[in-house]
């Protein structure tokens, strides 16, 4: 199976005339400087999270609609918290109970939400490219943020992982990052590889059985390993991925038990990595499948810090995208 590819001109829709973010749809196509700006802005929002009042007035009067066409707990709730901490009003649309089940089309639903003066859509969808489609359909000035689309990208997850890595390792240039597990179904892996490449990581490895690797993954500039011990050797960062059983059509795996035996991250296995290596997981975890509890809850785990960083990164992306739309509208008006 092949990962969906995005052609370059599509990435340009994310930026305004000055190269500022106005939608956040994919990491692919974004330059290092912009990714660094997201990380730096997120650091400022982390400081806001430590105050007695963890709220800033940036998006006061703006309305953010969370459109989740696919289940999510962590991502949806951290997007909601992020919007609220920016003082925006938040509308959570649970798609299963919304009018789409009564036959309303997506564009009709968007028109209706826009009529309620929604300024930003946060979209999660099972179909790759849905947030991009919505970004082409919304009226000027409205932002779209990708909260995970199919197997394509999960850009805010990648950026919160980059923030977590930078906090622990200081930078990316000398790092060996190993991504383990279900690479094939993982939009997180895909976004992370693009981000790590743009940020200049020394070596990016993917460790998975052949059946869970996209065809031609080497063309993304990663090293492929089929055994865990070899792939983890001297790694600085280990990213474990959730085994996405719900996306698996056909027999890609003999069994979960077999997967754990070969690719499950245990304390024993972690000894191949550097002693100060950090362990990440985008959640939700299948304990005893891709990761052992001893590792998930161990001293090298930064999994809960990832969740906290998720709020700051989402605040950064939302405020930067809204800012980019404001400047784009101002430029139109000034012409």
């Amino acid at each position, binding site marked *: 199976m092949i990962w969906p590819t995005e052609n370059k001109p599509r990435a340009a829709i994310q930026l305004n005339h000055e190269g*500022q973010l106005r939608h956040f749809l994919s990491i692919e196509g974004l330059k290092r400087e912009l990714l660094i*700006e997201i990380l*730096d*802005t997120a*650091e*400022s929002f*982390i*400081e*806001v999270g430590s*105050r*007695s*009042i963890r*709220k*800033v*007035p*940036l998006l006061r*009067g703006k309305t953010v609609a969370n459109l989740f066409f696919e289940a999510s707990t962590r991502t949806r709730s951290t997007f909601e918290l992020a919007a609220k901490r920016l003082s925006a009003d938040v509308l959570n649309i649970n798609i299963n109970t919304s009018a789409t089940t009564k036959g309303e089309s997506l564009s009709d639903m968007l028109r209706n939400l826009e009529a309620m003066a929604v300024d930003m859509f946060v979209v999660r969808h099972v179909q790759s490219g849905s947030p991009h489609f919505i970004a082409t359909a919304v009226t000027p000035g409205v932002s779209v943020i990708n909260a995970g689309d199919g197997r394509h990208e999960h850009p805010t997850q990648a950026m919160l992982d980059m923030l977590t890595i930078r906090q622990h390792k200081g930078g990316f240039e000398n790092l060996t990052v190993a991504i383990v597990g279900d690479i094939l179904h993982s939009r997180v892996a895909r976004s992370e590889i693009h981000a790590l490449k743009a940020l200049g990581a020394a070596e990016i490895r993917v460790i998975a059985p052949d059946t869970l690797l996209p065809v031609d993954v080497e063309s993304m500039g990663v090293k492929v390993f089929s055994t865990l011990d070899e792939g983890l050797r001297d790694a600085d960062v280990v990213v474990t991925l959730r085994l996405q059983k719900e996306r698996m059509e056909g027999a890609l795996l003999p069994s979960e038990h077999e997967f754990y035996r070969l690719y499950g991250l245990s304390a024993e296995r972690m000894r191949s990595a550097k002693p100060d290596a950090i362990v990440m997981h985008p959640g939700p975890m299948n304990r005893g499948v891709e990761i052992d509890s001893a590792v998930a809850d161990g001293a090298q785990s930064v999994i809960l810090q990832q969740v906290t960083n998720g709020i700051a990164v989402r605040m950064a992306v939302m*405020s*930067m995208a*809204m*800012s*980019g739309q*404001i*400047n784009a509208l*101002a430029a139109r008006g000034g012409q």
Partner: protein
Amino acid sequence: MMTEDPLVDVGSLLQSMAQKVTSLMQARNIGHYEIVGIRSGGVWLAKALGAELGHRGAVGELDISFYRDDFTRIGLHPRVRPSALPFATEDQNLLLVDDVLMSGRTIRAAMNELFDFGRPASITLAVLADIGQRELPIQPDVLGCTLHLKPGQRVKLLGPEPLNLVVKQGVPT
């Protein structure tokens, strides 16, 4: 054409500001206070003023980017950095320091931000130069100097070492 003329002697202004701060705090019965500067000129000035006052303890640094009232017009300021207050503001007396006072909007944003760290007991405002053009009812408690600028002129503090207040000419309005 852009020219830069040194305007005033910042060192002697700092000395007189320090004296005014000391007598004002005495008159207000404020024994202990902390110093907060607004990035970036205000932070340089706050550190210099703190040294002049013999103030112990680190100076707080405020980045007001998230509190500006013109976000819906010009968007987010690039290169925002975390604010850093190495003390609690709750029930604290604060000396808020900035380089140039103009519309008063920066001070309003700074006060809003300070309150989100905890409700201060008091805020005293010290600025190096007042150039008028006020848009909000905000006045300094301690002032270095007043400047009358011609149309198109802007004033800027260069620093941190040495501190120099310069006028920039010919900047389009």
